[in-house]
């Protein structure tokens, strides 16, 4: 009897036992930092009182304040407008690359090319930028764009682009530097779209396609009239998911524009006009040591992220969100 009850209790807590490492890690790596960020964004934590704060969490040297938000919203930080513009450009452009360009690319690879070996080879090549360590990827771009030794300017010149249109430095001259930022991140992100779309294309029932062929449609027409419309949901998913990813991703920008370490990277990123929101928060914290303000900037990202994900759940419904790679009925 007791045994039975015990086993019943066990049945009830077993799932949570199994889940506990995951929950613990999640709380540690996601939840606690968010709570702490909320707290910090209402303080004036900076280099000045950081030591006192580390010694005593509730030290009265750290003031509770709304200044960070005033600064953000009431024009106390004139540079923020630029950051906002750059972020919009960054997220928007890379999205176009990742969602729409990679849609056509995926159709090419997964549908137009019937040779399995070629198709796989192309897919692997497209995955390379994602699989490489970011620092090496940055190194490769540093070489590629070098005006003297790199290939980019030579390639562009060989297809007839006049020297006068080429920048003296891709790294530093806006808008070229911004184009570079978009390319660097676009190549990494394109494979995400590719993965989702490829799976979706493969899951299209072949009788639909065959029926079209019987009607005399060419592959090109099938792609345009049948496949693309069927990829509506996957496309929406890629856009939504990547929006979140991009808002929070600055790793590649830091790796390329900050290479060499030290605080010079901040100046370079500013001069090149590639200072995106998440990177701005990073530099405010780790180059300007304004921890409170940096937290407030991060908090905005958290807010936007949570709002978007809430919206996505509403639009897609949970199940659809989770099955992006299948073609869903409309």
């Amino acid at each position, binding site marked *: 009897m007791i045994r039975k009850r015990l086993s019943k209790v066990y049945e009830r807590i077993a799932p949570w036992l199994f889940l506990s490492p995951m929950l613990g890690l999640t709380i540690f790596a996601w939840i606690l930092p968010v709570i702490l*960020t909320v707290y910090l964004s209402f303080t004036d934590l900076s280099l000045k009182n950081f030591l006192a704060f580390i010694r005593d969490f509730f030290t009265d040297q750290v003031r509770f304040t709304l200044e960070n938000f005033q600064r953000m919203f009431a024009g106390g930080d004139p540079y923020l407008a630029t950051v906002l513009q750059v972020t919009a450009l960054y997220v928007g452009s890379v999205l176009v690359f990742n969602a729409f360009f990679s849609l056509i690319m995926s159709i090419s690879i997964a549908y137009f090319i019937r040779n399995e070996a070629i198709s796989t080879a192309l897919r692997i090549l497209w995955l390379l930028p994602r699989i490489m360590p970011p620092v090496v990827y940055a190194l*490769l771009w540093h070489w590629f764009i070098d005006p003297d030794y790199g290939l980019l300017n030579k390639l562009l010149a060989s297809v007839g682009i006049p020297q006068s249109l080429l920048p003296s430095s891709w790294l530093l001259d806006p808008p070229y530097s911004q184009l570079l930022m978009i390319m660097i991140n676009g190549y990494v992100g394109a494979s995400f779209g590719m993965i989702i779309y490829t799976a979706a294309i493969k899951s299209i029932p072949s009788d639909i396609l065959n029926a079209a062929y019987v009607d005399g449609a060419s592959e090109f027409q099938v792609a345009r009239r049948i496949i693309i419309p069927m990829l509506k949901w996957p496309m929406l998913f890629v856009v939504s998911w990547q929006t979140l990813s991009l808002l929070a991703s600055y790793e590649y920008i830091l790796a390329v524009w900050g290479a060499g370490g030290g605080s010079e990277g901040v100046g370079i990123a500013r001069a090149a006009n590639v200072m995106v929101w998440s990177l701005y928060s*990073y530099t405010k914290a780790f180059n300007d040591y304004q921890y409170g303000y940096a937290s407030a900037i991060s908090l905005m990202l958290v807010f936007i992220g949570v709002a978007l994900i809430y919206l996505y759940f509403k639009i897609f419904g949970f199940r659809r969100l989770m099955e992006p790679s299948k073609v869903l009925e409309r």
Partner: protein
Amino acid sequence: MRRRTFDIAAKYIVVLVTAVIPLIPVVAMFLWLFMQSVSGRVILSLIPAELTLDNWRFLWSPVQAGLKEYPNIWPVAFNSLLLALTVAGIVVFVSTMGGYSLSRMDFRGRSALMQFIIALHAFPSIILLIALFILLNAVGLYGKGYVTLLGIALIKAGLEIPMATWIIKGFFDAIPWDVERAAFVDGAGRWRTWRSVILPQILPGIGAVSIFSFLAGWSEFVMVYTFIKDEAYYTLSILIYYLIGEFKYIDWGLLAAMGLFYTIPTIIFFGTSQRLLLKIYVGGVKR
């Protein structure tokens, strides 16, 4: 008929323009990495020049810039390996347990929990580094040598967990209930069932997840760069990051060789298991 020819031509143009031509930079960069690493001078095309192994000198002597000596590569590579293995270990352990529970057990809040895991994507901890730093410091996972690497590994593993759990859950979902029921009938408990019956069935999934997380740890850059202060605990990404600043324009050969050295494990893993990875990628949700 003419229309048909036109369509076929259009098709190949689309293939070329969207899937092949944009790959030229990627392929060129990769070729350059190989060629430059064995070239004695800067190569202006993709043909190696003045074959030499001198670029690989960092393997037997520390790199020097001016009067500054950078740490020896082997301890640094060892740190990278340690970080990568720790991340992989944590992720595999945590995700197999969590994935099993989500896939196989019925409990209140299961669906909410799954939504929650997905929702975590809204605020990856990479944007919360200040808070993470204070947190690590508060729990004593900061500053004590290798312990800092452990702290970074925990956070990195935490970042990978939602996706890994999701992948593993997919593998559990694919195991027929009958197998498990048979084990139950034999009187095995949940834990034993999990270990001796279920686990072997999802080995490919574990393989994929461990490779993923190993590569994630191996490549990790921002957190190590931000949190590690002592040269003794540098990882390869940080060493190379600094050296790009030292040797750009000066010694592309050395940089290429180091970059290649750092990428070799990635290439090996990816090369030997690309089929598996592609399959997982197709189901997975990862930026």
